[in-house]
């Protein structure tokens, strides 16, 4: 896109600047006693307007020589010859237009184009074009820098997203070692339960590995992951941990980023259920409405203020991740009352049909 021709405001400023230049030329001609005001203006304004269009073409000359594929000598050569061509064309026009005016209005005082004046016109045309070339070149350079910055910001966003994914898919060492400890305890108490727990743990990690690399998975897959995770946690926490799922059937095929629900359950246990001597029930509600997928997780928390654990970092991360994926097309909000914590999120309802 041409920076001047494609922008109405810039174009107006540009044209006005050239009209002033035309007036200035006329003023000089009058001052040098070469013509009277009316003839000088009649001559200089069209010539200046032609000059403005001629000069704007310098942009395309600069564009044709990208920075990374130009040598100094070639650039100099191209710029010099372009300026030369421009100077000659302008000179030719000045000469021709003067002739036309003289023929058209014979009684008007004629502008005598001395060789000196012609050389002056040529040099002006040459110099102005060269300046324009340099100005456009600087403009393009700045534009390139801005563009590079934009790209860098975008790639940073993507990189952070990838990093978050990796972070999330990393094994929580507490979970792993405590689970292994539970298995170790179960071997002597209940061998079948020990085996069940080993398998649930293996299934959970295998699935984590399988989905962590994917950009989107179906809600059904995520729910399966949660099931395996909860199977392990239920053995660890026993009757303390209750979970109620309420998932609308038409929501199950929704495509969601992997591991958005499982970490929430993990949080609900870590910061909620675990702190309650009698435990509690985590409620998960998922439904689809008006092309939005709504997910809500509610869990009881201890009312004692000293027990508020965590710093909301995980939740801010989730918000950032959603922002990177959906822009402002997704919402995450949470609120804590005295004895309850509720997290709600809404994301665009996406489905794939070719499964």
């Amino acid at each position, binding site marked *: 896109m041409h920076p001047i021709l494609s922008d109405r405001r810039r174009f107006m400023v540009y044209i006005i600047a050239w009209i002033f230049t035309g007036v200035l030329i006329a003023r000089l001609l009058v001052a040098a006693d070469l013509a009277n005001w009316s003839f000088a203006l009649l001559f200089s304004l069209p010539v200046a307007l032609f000059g403005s269009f001629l000069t704007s073409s310098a942009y395309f000359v600069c564009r044709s020589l990208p920075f990374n594929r130009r040598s100094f000598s070639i650039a100099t050569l191209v710029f010099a010859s372009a300026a030369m061509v421009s100077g000659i064309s302008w000179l030719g026009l000045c000469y021709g237009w003067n002739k036309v005016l003289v023929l058209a209005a014979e009684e008007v005082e004629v502008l005598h184009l001395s060789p000196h004046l012609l050389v002056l016109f040529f040099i002006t045309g040459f110099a102005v074009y060269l300046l324009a070339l340099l100005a456009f070149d600087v403009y393009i350079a700045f534009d390139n820098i801005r563009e590079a910055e934009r790209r860098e910001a975008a790639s940073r966003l993507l990189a952070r997203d990838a990093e978050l994914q990796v972070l999330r898919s990393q094994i929580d*060492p*507490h979970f*792993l*070692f*405590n689970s*292994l*400890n*539970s*298995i*170790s*305890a*179960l071997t*002597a*108490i209940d061998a079948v339960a020990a085996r069940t727990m080993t398998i649930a743990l293996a299934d959970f990690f295998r699935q984590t590995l399988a989905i962590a690399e994917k950009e989107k998975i179906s809600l059904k897959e995520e729910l399966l992951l949660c099931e395996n995770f909860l199977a392990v946690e239920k*053995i*660890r*926490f*026993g009757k303390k941990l209750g979970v109620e799922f309420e998932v609308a059937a038409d929501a199950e095929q929704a495509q969601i980023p992997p591991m958005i629900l499982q970490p929430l359950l993990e949080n609900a246990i870590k910061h909620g259920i*675990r*702190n309650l*001597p009698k435990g509690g029930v985590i409620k998960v509600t998922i439904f689809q409405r008006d092309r939005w997928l709504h997910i809500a997780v509610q869990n009881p928390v*201890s009312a*004692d*203020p*000293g*027990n*508020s*654990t965590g710093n909301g970092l995980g939740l801010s991360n989730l918000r950032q991740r959603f922002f990177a994926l959906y822009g402002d097309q997704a919402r995450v909000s949470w609120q804590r009352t005295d004895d309850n914590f509720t997290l709600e999120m809404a994301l665009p309802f996406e489905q794939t049909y070719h499964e």
Partner: protein
Amino acid sequence: MNKRLQVLIVDDEELARRLSLEYLRAHPDLEVIGECETGLEAVDAIGRLNPDLILLDIQMPQLTGLEVLEMTGRRSGVIFSTAYDQYALKAFDLHAIDYLLKPFSQQRFDEALGKARKLLAQDAAPVTQALESLLTQQSEKLPRLLIRDRGQVHVVPLESIDYVEAQDDYILIHAAGKSYMKTQSLAELETQLESQKGSSKFVRVHRSFLIQISALQALEKTSKDSQVAILKSGAQIPVSRAGYERIKPLLS
């Protein structure tokens, strides 16, 4: 030894406690006198039963194992266990204190038990000292106060404290609309709070009042040289002349 050693098991996971019980079966000279599910229960049980040996999990909700020790003043006869806690483990290694990493074997358990027994029989001063310095280090990182009031243990975050009031031989800590009683002098608490590295700042505005700067709403002049501090909670605290001199530079 003519008396069986009494053991208390502290872990928030039932299966983990059962594993300890199983491993202890190989040691008939030990007697399990109690199991605790939370740090608060442990504080209570340690005070009540004074066990010879405590199997203490570090990572527990509400109160961590280290906070249990801090509250009870218990410094010896403890075997620590943890699944994973980078920071705690670093501290333990630094002070050469033994601990069990979950899951652990019977052999490793017996070894830790053997060490603990030896220390119980002899002079345990080095370990006590190591633990003492570890806890001092840890408590600097914990911007909260542990209060035992009327048989109950409370964890009060420092930032929630509005003011502390000295009574006859105890203090009343007012935090988030509640008040807690503690047998300690105001001067003692003041030094303790000063050593905290958190963002909470307290000022002694009166012989018997300590207020948190961030809880202050305004200072009001009531007569020629007496002031009253009005807190955001609405409470009005008398400010002595010396107290005013202390608080003035902090308000600019």
